[in-house]
């Protein structure tokens, strides 16, 4: 079974078309890298796959379930790391993760495991608003992988992280999960990708398994 299937998927905000006719397939365990300039439709695509936005046309399936009709079946199997950390500023890191653990019915022992993995155990009882940008991103990664999702939807997951933090976080964002990775780091994105989607003005400029760096850079020209 394919992890992600998109057939002519489109989405508009009022009169503005954010995504138009994207078609692609991603097998389980593969990584789809999505490239495109600002406003190309990358985040819209990610939010559709996360069940947070309805597609206005076409068919989108995640783990064999059609969205949004069967969205309930894939929620909980998706880990979503967008621009916002989805953490409450006035709660501590640990309180935030416990809240999400309760919603996802995950044991609290997983929280300490993850805080250790990203080097945040000592700051676990500090309010989120006291964390630096990089620490906040590490905490957000913990939230994203807390329930060991089968599909990871990642929008610039390493943004704001120093090389040491990247080394801590990177292993958590790999593993058996199928990944959709939005990145502006062309070299890194291509190195991670099994399938590459290039978006320009909401349309798929290319969907391919073998793409040159020059083709990707042309999206930003």
């Amino acid at each position, binding site marked *: 079974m394919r992890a992600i299937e998109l057939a002519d998927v489109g989405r508009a905000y009022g009169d503005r078309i954010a995504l138009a006719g994207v078609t692609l397939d991603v097998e389980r365990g593969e990584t789809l890298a999505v490239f495109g300039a600002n406003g190309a439709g990358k985040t819209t695509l990610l939010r559709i796959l996360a069940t*947070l936005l309805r597609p206005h046309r076409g068919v989108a399936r995640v783990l064999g379930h059609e969205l949004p009709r069967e969205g309930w079946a894939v929620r909980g199997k998706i880990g979503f790391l967008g621009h916002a950390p*989805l953490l409450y500023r*006035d709660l501590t890191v640990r309180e935030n993760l416990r809240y999400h653990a309760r919603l*996802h019915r995950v044991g609290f022992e997983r929280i300490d495991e993850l805080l250790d993995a990203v080097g945040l155990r000592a700051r676990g009882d500090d309010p989120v608003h006291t964390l630096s940008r990089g620490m906040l991103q590490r905490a957000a990664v913990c939230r994203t992988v807390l329930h060991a999702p089968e599909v990871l939807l990642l929008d610039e997951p390493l943004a704001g992280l120093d090389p040491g933090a990247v080394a801590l976080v990177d292993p958590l964002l790999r593993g058996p999960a199928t990944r959709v990775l939005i990145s502006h780091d062309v070299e890194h994105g291509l190195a991670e990708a099994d399938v590459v989607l290039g978006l320009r003005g909401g349309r798929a400029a290319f969907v391919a398994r073998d793409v040159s760096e020059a083709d990707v850079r042309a999206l930003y020209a």
Partner: protein
Amino acid sequence: MRHAIAALIRKDVRLELRTRESVPAMVLFSLGTFVLFHFALDEREVSGALAAGILWVTLLFAAVLGINRLFVAEREEGGFDGFLLAPVDRTSLFVAKATVLFGFLVAVEVFVVAAFAVLLLGPSPWAGLPALALVLVVADAGIAVIGTLVGALAVQTRARDLLVPLLALPLSIPLVIAGARACAPLLTAGGGDGLEARWLLVLGLYDLVFGLLAYAIFDFLLEE
């Protein structure tokens, strides 16, 4: 669904205890309103229908403050997305938020009714206190249901602060009428046995109708 409701309530109570944004503001607003009524009416003491009217209008306006804040953290800190990504029934958010608002209203009333008795009320409230508490609790359930519905609707818009009073106050008119009528005899001298069951019934019916309505439509309010 119960585990999600418990998680949401626990989180909201913790946030309120930490930030103290809602309940203290509602209490202070109510105390300020009593002082204004005291000077505006130029009366040292009030009782009966006038006292009930002042109490209910004050409580309702204070509730609007709480309703305005109810979904702010969800909107501004990504709480909606975090919740919508979880494998839980979306109605659990409605139940949890209504329960939290109900709790806030009860907490506010503990202070506000005591202050009302000291600052404005003429007759002693002790005789009618159990019945008054019953009326307040039944009416609070209605305010919590309406408030949660309106709060969820308004928070999706830029005119949130405007929309909450514009929607919540007209929808609460039946609650104020029934609440004030039920309370009026309790706020007179020796009002211990003055509670009219029909007004309690009206309040209960209102809670039931709007509770079912909110249960039916809340999921749609969470759509993008």
